[in-house]
């Protein structure tokens, strides 16, 4: 085994843990599911550790780096959150379905470290990418909470989902702030007209939309849930398919 094989091994191990989590959650073995969730998070943490040691920087870009970071954030948040729920079964189920979908969609993608682009020597670039991945993990967790709220019976999940969205917005805006600083130093403007800028703005607007739902929309469970799910879906699409 060479260090170049590590990303593929981390990917396969994480997929195995998510599958085990999915099965145990389906058969209502919450505690066992929690153990697999913790193991998956540890595997992703070790993936992050590998990137830190091997590339001398945090995960930033590309299928492998984005996956381990996002799944790690989702895992930590799920571990913290699931303990507060009276009936965590649905949450485990939807959370592991979301993680599995992410892993499955990246099946066949090159599992390797991203090229060490020379601009990664700048702290604003590191923060921009790193915080964006963190925000993606938070928004994905928020999306799972909104799915649970729409399909389940625990009323508190709406408010938890709203909290997660706002926390994700803070991290995302911090990422955009450092990105603006990077853009100013790189191209002379705090922002530039490009499809990347427009997509980044759409994401922020989606969060704003979810926070400004009128009463008649709030009454419709599907629309309310869609408002909370869309930012998570959009940022994941942006990161993996942009």
């Amino acid at each position, binding site marked *: 085994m060479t260090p170049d094989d590590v990303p593929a091994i981390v990917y396969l191990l994480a997929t195995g843990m998510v599958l085990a989590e999915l099965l145990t959650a389906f058969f209502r073995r919450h505690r066992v599911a929690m153990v697999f969730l913790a193991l998956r998070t540890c595997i992703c943490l070790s993936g992050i550790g590998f990137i830190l040691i091997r590339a001398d920087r945090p995960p930033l870009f590309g299928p492998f780096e984005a996956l381990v970071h996002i799944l790690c954030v989702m895992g930590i948040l799920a571990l913290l959150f699931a303990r507060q729920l009276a009936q965590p079964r649905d949450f485990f189920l939807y959370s592991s379905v979301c993680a599995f979908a992410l892993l499955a969609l990246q099946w066949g993608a090159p599992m390797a470290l991203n090229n060490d682009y020379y601009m990664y020597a700048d702290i604003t670039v590191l923060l921009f990418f790193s915080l964006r991945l963190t925000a993606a993990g938070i928004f994905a967790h928020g999306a799972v909470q909104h799915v649970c709220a729409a399909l389940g019976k625990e009323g508190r999940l709406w408010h938890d989902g709203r909290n997660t969205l706002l926390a994700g917005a803070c991290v995302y805006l911090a990422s955009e702030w450092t990105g603006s600083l990077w853009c100013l130093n790189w191209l002379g403007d705090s922002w530039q*007209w490009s499809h990347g800028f427009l997509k980044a703005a759409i994401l922020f607007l989606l969060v704003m939309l979810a926070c*400004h739902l009128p009463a008649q929309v709030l009454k419709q469970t599907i629309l309310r849930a869609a408002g909370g799910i869309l930012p998570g879906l959009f940022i994941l699409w942006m990161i993996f398919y942009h």
Partner: protein
Amino acid sequence: MMHFLSSLRLAFYNLLALILWMGTGVVLSHSHEAAFDRMNEMPILEWMGNTMPQSPLPVVWFLVLCMISLILLVNALCCTFNRQLVLARKLKKGKPWLFFILHCLFILVLGCHGLILVAGDKQGRIYLSPGMSHVFGPYRILAEEVVIGDDPKLLSALGKTQRSRMTRDNIGLHNNYVRLRLFRNDLEVADKPVYMLSPMRYKTLQVTLVEFSQNPRQLSPGVILTITDNPLNPVFFLVYGIMILSLAGFTMLTWHQKPPEKDIS
């Protein structure tokens, strides 16, 4: 009228329209790439004048975007001062006040975004090789020398393969630079090496090294610069930063509280 302008329903549909319109912009930015690129190289009014005859679609798109954003600004202003301020005064509690401040900061950030577009001056993609100078308002920028410590082919790379070779091992941010001298009304006011990601700043003027370039007519390598003069940039970053902190504060304060259904989902 004021009731409608400050309504949550207007905010919702307006945000929805803005999202869809920006999505249209994503598609347009691919089909009209050159027009979108030029948008970053000159003041916006100049861009509109230059682009309208050749390629009107991006200009129309931009004007509609401005209109939707303006409605959002009016909606935010009306809601903030007609509803949130009234509520904050009535309740006399910290949270409504923070909610009000948060919206004020958002209005300021949105306003800064708009003003940055029209304020100041800008010239993009200025090519200078050693000994050449460029005049920008009362300023003259002289390229004294261009120092390339790394492989010059990599620095002017364009293709994806070459870009993938532009790694931290192959290129050092401080190995390559252009020494610039800045004159204001023929009086030298600055002389410093300008690196990638480390622009020269003098008052509100910023001279940014965008890339290294090899002009076929010149023997020595040159640089591509962007010159901007925008007094609003520091204000924008300050207000933007405070807004993020206020949002974080508001999120923490309302973490355990179920908010009214009408305001926050």
